Each structure stands twice: as structure tokens, then as C-alpha cells.
């Protein structure tokens, strides 16, 4: 048995282990023990893979629905992001900023139709050249081969150097125990402990079971596209071929993988 397990890769192993755990407990929603790996989502489909994941945000789709928070709610619910209701303890993975702040270097007076006060969806850019992973003293955050910038919440020592290094303010710190501030815990995903950094993970746990990111799925205007930037036939490539897109702070050389259609 052990030899057989060594032969399968880690992902397959987790799948098997997850399926086994689900089978044992009977119901995936009720963990036997808090530390059981019940966060593994049910194995339903082949994983989505890519050579470089990227997202395209259509700001016009967003503009039609000022005040819409569907994608944010879906993400924060899926990932057990706490809501403390105060800016000091705030944790967020995806949120809306004013255009003038999200694109400070591209804002100007008399920008078309009050654009400056419109809201822009922002999240971790999953940079191709991420400054946050470079500074981490424990490699608790790293870039996966498919471009997803990952976090290991069990290795993070909470030095917050990555927060200082991120030019997009995409990272949050757990200033206190997040669990009491989660309205309803989603058992398929781990909660965090106090003292570690967290951020958007491009829904790597959903990609692993063939699902698109929660925000992409939640958008009622289909304003978010997600796909493989290195695949010429992918939807993100099709959009980038036909529409002009911008990225946040391109001058810093971080190569963000979140593109904005204005």
C-alpha cells in the first residue's frame, strides 16, 4: 500500500485521501474532528490545468451594477474570510476600490463619465514576478508553476514582510482569531489562525476539482474571464486579442496576471 501511494503524485494522493475521508464520515459537511482534512472538496471532475492562469475583469460589466457585491460575497463565503466590520482588523481577498485609487497612475482630471468615482474590482494579481514571494523568509508564499501565488498558513511566521512588499495592498493579516468573525463556516475550506497572512488563491482548491473560481462563477454579468494565458485558444487570449486591456502599476515590472478592460 505504501509503495503504491509513493507512486501516485501528491494531488492524486490528496484526492484519494479526501474521498476516503468523505466516505468515512458519510457527510462532507460534518467534520468528525476539527483537524480532519474535511476541507478537501468532493472529487467530481478532472482538475482544470494551465501553464499560466490569468483573469480578465471587464470593468463595464461591473459598472452596470454599481453596488453589486456578488463575487465578493461568493469568494469570502467560500474561503471563510472573516468580517470584523472595522478597518483595523479587516481581512479581504477581493474587494472594490475607486478607479482613482486602483489605477492612481492612470487617473486624470475629466476622466470619462465620472469614471474616477466608479468602483474597480481588485484582488491578488498573481504576478508573474511577485515581490511578495521574493521577500518571504520561510517560503510560506510561493509561485506555483501555473502562476498561482500560494500561501502556506502553517508555515507563515507572521512577519508581514510580504504585506510591505505587495504594491497592490492585496494581502491581509489576521490581527486576531478570525473564526468568531465568520458568519457561517464553510467546512470545505480551512479557517485560519491569528498571526498569519492570507490573500486570494485564484481558487486553487476549486481548480483542482474542475471548477472555475468562485468570483467568476458568481458574476451575474459574466464580467470575469479566467483561463490559460499560454493557450492561444483560451477565452482570456481571445479577449486580449480583441480588446485593449490595462494592468495595475505595470511600471513596477511585477507582471500582474489580472487584466482590466476599460
Amino acid at each position, binding site marked *: 500500500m505504501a509503495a503504491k501511494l509513493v507512486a501516485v503524485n501528491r494531488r492524486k494522493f490528496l484526492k484519494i485521501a479526501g474521498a476516503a475521508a468523505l466516505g468515512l464520515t458519510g457527510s462532507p459537511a460534518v467534520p468528525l474532528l476539527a483537524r480532519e482534512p474535511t476541507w478537501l472538496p468532493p472529487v467530481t471532475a478532472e482538475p482544470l490545468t494551465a501553464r499560466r492562469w490569468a483573469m480578465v475583469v471587464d470593468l463595464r460589466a461591473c459598472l452596470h451594477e454599481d453596488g453589486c457585491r456578488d463575487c465578493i460575497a461568493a469568494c469570502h463565503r467560500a474561503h471563510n474570510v472573516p468580517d470584523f466590520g472595522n478597518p483595523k482588523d479587516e481581512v479581504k481577498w477581493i474587494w472594490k476600490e475607486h478607479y482613482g485609487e486602483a489605477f492612481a497612475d492612470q487617473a486624470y482630471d475629466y476622466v470619462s463619465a465620472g469614471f474616477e468615482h466608479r468602483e474597480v474590482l481588485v484582488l491578488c494579481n498573481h504576478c508573474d514576478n511577485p515581490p511578495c514571494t521574493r521577500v518571504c*523568509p520561510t517560503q*510560506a508564499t510561493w509561485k506555483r508553476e501555473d502562476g498561482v501565488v500560494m500561501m502556506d498558513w502553517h508555515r507563515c*511566521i507572521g512577519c508581514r514582510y510580504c504585506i510591505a512588499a*505587495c504594491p497592490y495592498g492585496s494581502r491581509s493579516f489576521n*490581527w486576531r482569531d478570525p473564526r468568531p468573525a465568520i458568519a457561517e463556516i464553510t467546512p470545505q475550506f480551512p479557517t485560519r489562525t*491569528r*498571526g*498569519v497572512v492570507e490573500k486570494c488563491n485564484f481558487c486553487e482548491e476549486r481548480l483542482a476539482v474542475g471548477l472555475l473560481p468562485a468570483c467568476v462563477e458568481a458574476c451575474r454579468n459574466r464580467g470575469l474571464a479566467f483561463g490559460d494565458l499560454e493557450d492561444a485558444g483560451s477565452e482570456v487570449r481571445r479577449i486580449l486579442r480583441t480588446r485593449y486591456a490595462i494592468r495595475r502599476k505595470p511600471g513596477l515590472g511585477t507582471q500582474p496576471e489580472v487584466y482590466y478592460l476599460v
Partner: protein
Amino acid sequence: MFEKALSGDRRYWGWIIVLLAVIATGGRFYLRQLEYGLGITGLSRDVAWGFYIAQFTFLVGVAASAVMVLLPYYLHDFKAFARVTILGEFLAISAVTMCVMFILVDLGQPARAVNIMLYPSPRSILFWDLIVLNGYLLLNVVISRVSLAAERKGEAPPLWIKPVIVLSIPWAVSIHTVTAFIYSGLAARPFWLTAILAPRFLASAFSSGPSLLILLCLILRRLSNFDAGKEAVQKLAVIVTYAMLVNVFFVLMEFFTALYSDIPEHVEHFRYLYLGLEGHAELVPWMWASSALALLAVLLLVSRRLREQPAWLALACITVIVSIWIEKGLVMVVTGFVPSPLGKVTTYVPTVPELLISLAVYGCGALILTLLYKIALSVRGELRA
């Protein structure tokens, strides 16, 4: 040798008890921080580093400044420093210990600190900083112990220690350079993104550290029979004078580049510091005080007549230390986060628990320094009866 620290008069024990009380008080609050999390401090999502990291930065400078007595003594054979080298090394040991403690109390998961060694990350400057800091601590422990043991036996120190001492000189420069690199390599923080940060750190270190050493010499002369000698103190005063002039010069260079180039994200930090931004002006009086004190310090120091009088010299040294403490220990770290990369201006004010925990770390440093100085002075048999 350590038994020397266990005998002393009432004043000595009184001071030790005061320090232990300060440490115990802060220690209790640290336990609360462990339980509640770093939310007990004034830090927030936008201002992620504050008082702890700022004290760390200031104290790296104090530690590095020991080189200002070692270099003239060992490389230029400046004999007047013979009696103060050990004070400089002990000050370095105390300061580096506080640096490491300030990093530890700032960690969200201090129990995992060992991960830095388990998963060495040569691309991270923080990794290198811990290596140079611990290396510097080790160098100073070895050097001071070997020299003091030799002095006690009335022998010349062993030959092998000389290259170790010479190594400690560039090593001292490295600790503050690497500490500056933590900040000056971040594209996200325009306020720190300046090549002159490391030279500036060194200049402010070489003025504030020797200032502290002068004050310690003046205090020891009153409390014990130890006399560093007028020549040593005056030479230190000259070092402080030049270092402070260079420091002020470097700061003016920063002003010029930021203000003349007029790049908004560079200018805004200076505006926040000196004028306030969006109604947030908490640091403004501190910054003006720091600048005014720096100017006063320069005026006091460049006058040789004033500098040669211990009272005026002491005042000048206090002025230098307070000015640089405000700059490095209060303002410089926080301002990197204000405004944030998204243009947000967030107020940061350290909380009472945060200040008491910091005070406890300073208490530990003072305790280490007291014990070490007591040992050194007892070994020399220079204490009053």
C-alpha cells in the same frame, strides 16, 4: 567571572529590581498579545509594521556603532580607546539582543520563528538580516569575553582574536546595511525606495550610538571609579559631530530628490511627515521636533568650546539620540505605509500594551548592559569599595 554581577550595593540592586519590574509588567502584556494576537497593537491592514520594527531598526544602529571605538583602537592603534572598547562591545551585545527580541515580539506566530532556519530563503533580506545579526552577536560575545578574560589575568589577548576583531568591523557595517535593504528594495514603498537609505542608516547609527556611549561614560564616572578619560570622550564627540553632519546632509539629499523631481508618490510621504495628509497630522509635531533637535545638535557639536564641556556635551548627545530616535524609532517605518499603495491615509498610534511590551524589551537590554558593565568594572577593580 559572572559571579561579579551578583554582588553590589543597595543602589545596584535597586536598579536591578526596577528593571525586573519593568520586564515583568511588559511580559504580562506580551502573554496577552500571544493570546489575543497582534491586534492588541495599533497596527492595521494598511500600517503593518510599527513601533516594534522601528525600535529594531533604531537599535541595529546602536549595535553597529561599536565599530566606532573598535576601528580607531584596533586598526589605527588609538590607545585612548583602550578602556572604552569593552563598553562598546557590551553595548553592541545588549543592542543586538534587543533587536532580535523586537523581531520576535512582532511575529504573528513566534513559535514558528525557527522556520526561518528550517527553510532558508536566500532571496529574502530578512533571512540575511537574522544571519548577520546573530553573527554579530556571536562575534561580540567571543571578542569581549576573550579580551576581558585576558585582562583579568593581566595577559595580552591571544593572537587569534585579532583577525576576529578585524572581521567584526565590516560585519558591523553589514548589519545596518542589510537592515536598510529590508526597506530600500521594495518597489511597493516609494518612501523607502532610495539608495541612500543604507548610508543614511550608518550615518545616523554612528552619531546616535557613540552619543549613547559618551553618556554611559559620563554616567559611569559619577557612579563608579571608572573614568574613560577625557581624550576618549572627546574623540567620541568628534566622531558624533562628523557623523551627525553627514546624517543631516544625507537627509537633505532625500528632500532634494523627492521634492524637486516632484513625483507624487515620493512627495506625498514627505507632505504627510511635515504637513499632514487628509487631516492626518499625528507625526507632524514629532517630525518638526526631530528636525529642530538635529539642527540644535549640529550647532552644539560644531562649537568646540561647548563640546569640550561635559554638561554641554551631554546635552548635545541627548539631543542627537532623541532626534534620531524620533526619525528611526517612530517615523521612518510608519511613513512607508502612509499613504498606502492604494492612496489610503491610516492613522497609527501605538497602544499602551505595545509600549509596555517595548519598554520590557528595553528593560531586558538595560539589564544585560548593567550586568555586563558590572562584570567589566569589577574585573578592573575600579568600583568604589
